[in-house]
């Protein structure tokens, strides 16, 4: 028997969630106010969870390290959100969305979780629309849909190129409504630095006020982490500057297993880096692949402007290799193919590090106005960053780290291996398997927060009626606060010669080279020998100026980069142990003759969840076997 009990209910796949909602224990409406819940993070998952829990009557404390909950990085999602509404009458259904998501994830996710996600997807659209999210509409006034990678139906709802912003503002408005009503205490500019346990259950958190430096404890009956993904371990990614793994990693150190850290997603359509100083890469929404055609010159080192290259000397390599899906193949496939052509020397642009995304045909077909109305803000953004006009010449794009499928292991209730500690949204590992489909992150974050956690958390709380939360004067909190203070002192007293950013950048290069778009044993072993060396140097030679009693951004970053070091080592080990290719995890040693990812279902059809054993001992790998009763495992083919 594995340590990991997924708690997936019995019964038919399509009935599991419905039946389970009836089976779970409930907290009486009048008793909900007797329970307090901490929610860390105010992105889609955190804001929607905090608002929904407060509406139900729970006492909620919401924490964010931003100055306002509305800044969370969900806001930057551009393209859209999937839902099995079938408003387009093109054959969509809950089962098809479930099937596409399982297949897109390369059969490395839990059937029951994914089916539940597809079921509640339709409720999300209703909820968001009722909140006033201005989704795009047809002239008849009904909602418009577009298609996205990995699907052959149009099921993606969108609000121009700002879908994440609008959905987050919807969730944020629901959160602020509860703040105004006094049911949520909001704590902005507070960074969670410890999860606190008593008798092996989560009982609270320790936070540091980023402005005053004050360290304080908060206790509750349950703690919910909705703190996003860890893509910034690569330094260069499409994540925001403040995105980090710290909350999840500190939870891991307190006993929450970390699952599938090697599953990272490299997004195919980002603006290529222009120089070393660059601190982040900017994504161009995948929706652009609906109308843009991706190509490179047939010849290597062809530096002619795109317009001078005749059709006969262009290679529309995705359309050529995958006629059925063409430019809309899933992200991992699109990214790897871009890497292949660039590695062949056919990359374009001044650094030969990109491929063309060309709108000439769509513009000729639909007119420039139609293209402008669909993608206007993305085109403007591209021009601001590159100084090039994409209406006149093709965009240059290249893959960049964008999303992390791995995260804290959670059961069907979204509870981690620490009782009373939950993980939501990108912070958990749950629904995307080894590869996430476009427009599914927003769906999962909101599903977890609006429609899953509010049900499942009651099942945990109901038997605890009448118990008070652990007092913050308990020694467990004092110990956690002391640990935070000690680390702060250590960073400020090291007084080395190199900045935190310097080490972050160096770490990022190692992670990109060793654990990037394609991995192999030699590269992973190299990473496992280089990263600890750099980590040692970081601890000995970093400089963190200033004091702990003011806003000190170097100090904040030092702790986050320290956690990235721990994570990077675990990613490399996870990637090394997974001797197969699946989704975003591509091992050179395991590919088909056509160069596609080759899974090993016999030996690796499982979730790898890592248990922390102390700072100086390697983590232990545990397995949760994945059982597929409703889909047949096949080699993914998008041809």
């Amino acid at each position, binding site marked *: 028997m594995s340590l990991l009990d997924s708690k997936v209910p019995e019964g038919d796949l399509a009935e599991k969630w419905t039946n389970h909602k009836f089976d779970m224990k409930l907290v009486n409406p009048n008793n909900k106010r007797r329970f307090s819940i901490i929610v860390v993070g105010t992105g889609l998952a955190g804001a929607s969870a905090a608002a*929904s829990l407060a509406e139900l009557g729970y006492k909620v404390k919401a924490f964010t390290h931003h100055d306002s909950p*509305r800044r969370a990085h969900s806001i930057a999602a551009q393209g859209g959100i999937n839902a099995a*509404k079938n408003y387009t009458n093109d054959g969509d259904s809950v089962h098809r969305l479930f099937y596409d998501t399982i297949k897109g994830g390369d059969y490395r996710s839990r059937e029951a979780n994914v089916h539940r996600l597809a079921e509640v997807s339709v409720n999300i659209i209703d909820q968001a629309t009722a909140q006033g999210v201005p989704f795009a509409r047809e002239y008849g006034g009904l909602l418009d849909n577009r298609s996205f990678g990995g699907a052959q139906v149009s099921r993606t709802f969108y609000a121009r190129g700002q879908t994440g912003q609008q959905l987050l503002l919807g969730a944020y*408005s629901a959160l602020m409504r509860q703040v105004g009503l006094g049911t949520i205490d909001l704590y902005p500019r507070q960074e969670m630095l410890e999860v606190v346990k008593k008798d092996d259950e989560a009982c609270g958190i320790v936070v540091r006020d980023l402005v005053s430096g004050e360290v304080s404890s908060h206790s509750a009956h349950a703690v919910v982490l909705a703190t996003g993904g860890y893509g910034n371990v690569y330094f260069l990614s499409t994540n925001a500057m403040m995105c980090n793994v710290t909350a999840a990693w500190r939870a891991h150190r307190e006993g929450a297993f970390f699952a599938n850290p090697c599953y990272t997603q490299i997004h195919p359509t980002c603006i290529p880096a222009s120089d070393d100083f660059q601190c982040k890469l900017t994504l161009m929404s995948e929706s652009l692949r609906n109308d843009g055609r991706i190509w490179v010159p047939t010849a290597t080192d062809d530096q002619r402007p795109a317009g001078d290259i005749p059709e006969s000397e262009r290679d529309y390599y995705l359309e050529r290799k995958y006629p059925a899906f063409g430019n809309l193949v899933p992200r991992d496939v699109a990214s790897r193919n871009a890497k292949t052509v660039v590695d062949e020397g056919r990359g374009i642009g001044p650094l030969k590090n990109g491929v063309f995304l060309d709108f000439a045909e769509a513009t000729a077909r639909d007119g420039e106005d139609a293209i402008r109305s669909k993608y206007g803000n993305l085109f403007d953004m591209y021009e601001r960053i590159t100084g090039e006009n994409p209406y006149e010449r093709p965009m240059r794009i290249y893959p960049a780290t964008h999303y992390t499928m791995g995260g804290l292991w959670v059961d069907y209730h979204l509870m981690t291996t620490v009782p009373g500690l939950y993980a939501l949204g990108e912070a958990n590992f749950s629904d995307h398997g080894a590869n996430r489909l476009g427009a599914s992150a927003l769906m999962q974050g909101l599903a977890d927060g609006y429609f899953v956690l509010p049900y499942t958390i009651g099942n945990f709380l109901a038997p605890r009626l009448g118990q008070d939360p652990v007092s913050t004067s308990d020694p467990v909190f004092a110990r956690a606060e002391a640990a935070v203070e000690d680390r702060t002192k250590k960073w400020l007293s090291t007084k080395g010669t190199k900045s935190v*950013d310097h080490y972050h950048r160096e770490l990022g290069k190692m992670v990109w080279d060793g654990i990037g778009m394609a991995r192999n044993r030699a590269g992973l072993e190299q990473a496992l020998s280089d990263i600890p060396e750099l980590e040692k140097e970081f601890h000995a030679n970093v400089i963190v*100026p200033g004091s702990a009693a003011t806003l000190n951004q170097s100090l904040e970053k030092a702790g986050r980069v320290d956690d990235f070091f721990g994570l990077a080592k675990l990613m490399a080990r996870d990637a090394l142990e997974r001797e197969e290719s699946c989704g975003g995890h591509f091992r050179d040693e395991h590919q088909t003759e056509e160069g596609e990812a080759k899974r090993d279902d016999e030996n690796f059809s499982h979730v790898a969840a890592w248990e922390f054993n102390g700072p100086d001992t390697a983590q232990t790998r545990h397995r949760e076997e994945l059982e597929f009763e409703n889909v047949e495992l096949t080699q993914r083919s998008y041809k």
Partner: protein
Amino acid sequence: MSNSMNLTLKVWRQDGPSENGRFETYEAHGISEDASFLEMLDIVNERLTEDGKDPITFESDCREGICGTCGVMINGRAHGPQFGTATCQLHMRKFADGDEIVIEPWRATSFPIVRDLAVDRSPLDAIIASGGYISVNTGAGPDANLIPIPKEVSDTAMDAAACIGCGACVAACPNSAAQLFTAAKVMHLNLLPQGQSERWTRTEAMVETMEEFFGSCTNHGECHAACPKEISLDFIAWMNKDYIKSKVKNRKLASQT
């Protein structure tokens, strides 16, 4: 490769909300014209840090012009010289080699300085908490296609909803008024059918919360000129109209109960 430039920065430094501030001068050498404005500051900060000095505190997050975290006065203009562009999306190719650039925090009494270029914009959240929502509990919404909304209406609501809450409108306004922010938020919801039930209470509450914190609008239009999302001044006119009506409507609604 891209051209590099040498710049002189005059930057406002202030250790805390109640400390005295001052301008400090820094040389920024060898900056690529392809660097963004904030990447230029990153480079300056890394040099300061490795010299053992306190780096310049400034806030930013997404660096894609959507989260609204960043924003400084650049040569006296909120978000700098490029129209419709947040500070993080401004690139150094908009400046010339040898330029002197003056960098200050948002200037508004209602946005107290936290440190250097970082300010406290929490009054904007207070405006939202007072009514910037549609009261619909999770699960209570009807089918999304139940109420058709004319595309033009939905598009106009989206134009307002595009506001990123950066506070540039307040910083640019000679009165430090927050009319553009508040109008964008009010009218996004007031234009939509879903927002009608609370239209008048929302408008009154949000406008009056705004007035607790911010100055009064005298129709300069500086806010629009500084807005990275080019939010239209029309929304302010609409909000004013709704506010006047709300005073009558809310009284009538109250008398019906």
